[in-house]
C-alpha cells in the first residue's frame, strides 16, 4: 500500500507540476536527470556542457509545464528538448568558431567536481564517440544516437526529431555506414 502511494507515474507528477508542486518536479528531475545527462553527453561529448543542457532542458520543462501533453512519454519530451537545445547549440556561430579554431571543447574542459575515475571514463568515451561520429552531420548523428544508443523506436525518433520515417531510415543508414567505415579506419590504424 505504501509503495502504491509513493510510486507515482510521470503523468501524475506532470499534473502536480502543473499545479506548481515543486516536490513533484524534484521527483521528475531525479527520475530523469540521468537519462537527460546520458543523451546530452553522447551529443556534446563533454560533461559540463551535458550538465548545462540538462539544466536548460529542465528549465524549459518547468516553464512550459502547463502545455505538456500528458499522453506523450516524458522521456520522449525530454529527448526532444535536449536534441533541440543541442541543435541550437551547434548552430551557434560563436561556439562553432571556438570549437574549430581553438579546439578547446574537445580536450580542455573537464568537470572539476567529478572524481578522477569518472573523468577518465567520460573523457575516454567522449574521445571514442567523437572519433567515430566526427564525420556525421548533426541530423545523422542525432538519429543515430536516438535509435542505436538510446534504443528509441522509429516512431519515437519521429516524435523527437520531427522527421519522417523515410528520412530517419535514410539518415540512419548513412550514419551507420560512416561509423563502420570510421571504425575500420581506427582499428586499421591501431593494428
Amino acid at each position, binding site marked *: 500500500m505504501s509503495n502504491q502511494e509513493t510510486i507515482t507515474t510521470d503523468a501524475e507528477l506532470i499534473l502536480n507540476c502543473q499545479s506548481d508542486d*515543486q516536490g513533484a*518536479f*524534484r521527483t521528475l*528531475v*531525479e527520475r530523469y*536527470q*540521468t537519462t537527460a*545527462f*546520458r543523451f546530452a*553527453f*553522447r551529443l556534446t561529448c563533454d*560533461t559540463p556542457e*551535458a*550538465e548545462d543542457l*540538462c*539544466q536548460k532542458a*529542465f*528549465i524549459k520543462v*518547468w*516553464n512550459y509545464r502547463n502545455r505538456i501533453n500528458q499522453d506523450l512519454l516524458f522521456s520522449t519530451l525530454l529527448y526532444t528538448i535536449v536534441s533541440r537545445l543541442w541543435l541550437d547549440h551547434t548552430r551557434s556561430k560563436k561556439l562553432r568558431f571556438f570549437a574549430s579554431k581553438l579546439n578547446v571543447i574537445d580536450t580542455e574542459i573537464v*568537470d572539476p*567536481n*567529478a*572524481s578522477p575515475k*569518472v*573523468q577518465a*571514463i*567520460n573523457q575516454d*568515451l*567522449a574521445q*571514442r*564517440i567523437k*572519433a*567515430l*561520429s566526427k564525420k556525421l552531420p548533426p541530423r545523422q548523428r542525432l538519429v543515430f544516437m536516438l*535509435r*542505436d*544508443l538510446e534504443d528509441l523506436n*522509429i516512431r519515437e525518433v519521429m516524435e523527437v526529431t520531427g522527421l519522417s520515417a523515410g528520412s530517419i*531510415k535514410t539518415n*540512419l*543508414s548513412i550514419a*551507420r555506414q560512416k*561509423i*563502420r567505415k570510421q*571504425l575500420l579506419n*581506427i*582499428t586499421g590504424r591501431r593494428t
Partner: protein
Amino acid sequence: MKHAKWIRSIHLLRAGELNPEEEQVLSNHLSGCKDCSAVYEKVQLDWIKVMGEIGTEPVLPDSERLSDDILSAVYRNELQFAPLKKTPRAEKEPFFLMPGFRLGLQVASLVLLAVFFVEQFQVTNSIQRLEIQLQSQNVRPRYARLNMIPPAFKKQLLVMVKEQLEQRGLATNRIDEIVQSLETGSIENETLSTRKRDLTRVEK
C-alpha cells in the same frame, strides 16, 4: 547481385526493423547460404565493435549536485522572469494644486503688481511735474501730452488748472474755453499770439 536483398535484410535485422516473419525467412536463408551468413557475422561483429567503442554509458559525476543545480537554476530563472508587482499609485491631483503651478502663479502676480505700481508711479510723477511746471513757470502745458494722461487723472488735473486760472483772475468764459479745449485737445490749433495774450492778461 541476388544476395543484395538478403544483405539489406541483414542490416535491417541488426537495426531491429524486421518483423518476426521476415526474421524467420532471413534465418532460413542464412542457414543455407555461406556468403550471406559471412556477411551477417561481419555485420554483427562490426556492431559489437561499435558498441564496444561507444556503447558504454557516460557516468553522471554527482547526481545529487546536478539535481540541486537544476532545481536552483529553475527557481532562479522563475524569479528572474516573474512579473513585477505593481505598486499602487496615488491619485493624480489637479494641475492647479501642483506646487509648481502655485509658485508660478505667485511669481506672475508679483510681477504684475510690480508693473502696475511702476506705471502708477510714472503717471503720478509726470502729473506732478506738469503741476510744478504750471505753477512755477506759469507756462501753458503741452496740451498734446495731456491727451496721453488717463481720463481720471485728466479730470482731476483740469479741476486744478481751472482753480489756478481763477486765482489768477482770468475771465470765466475764457477759463471755460481753455478747459474745454484742454478736454478736447483742440488747443494745439491756437495761434501763438492768442497764447501770449492770455499770458499778459494773467500777468496783469
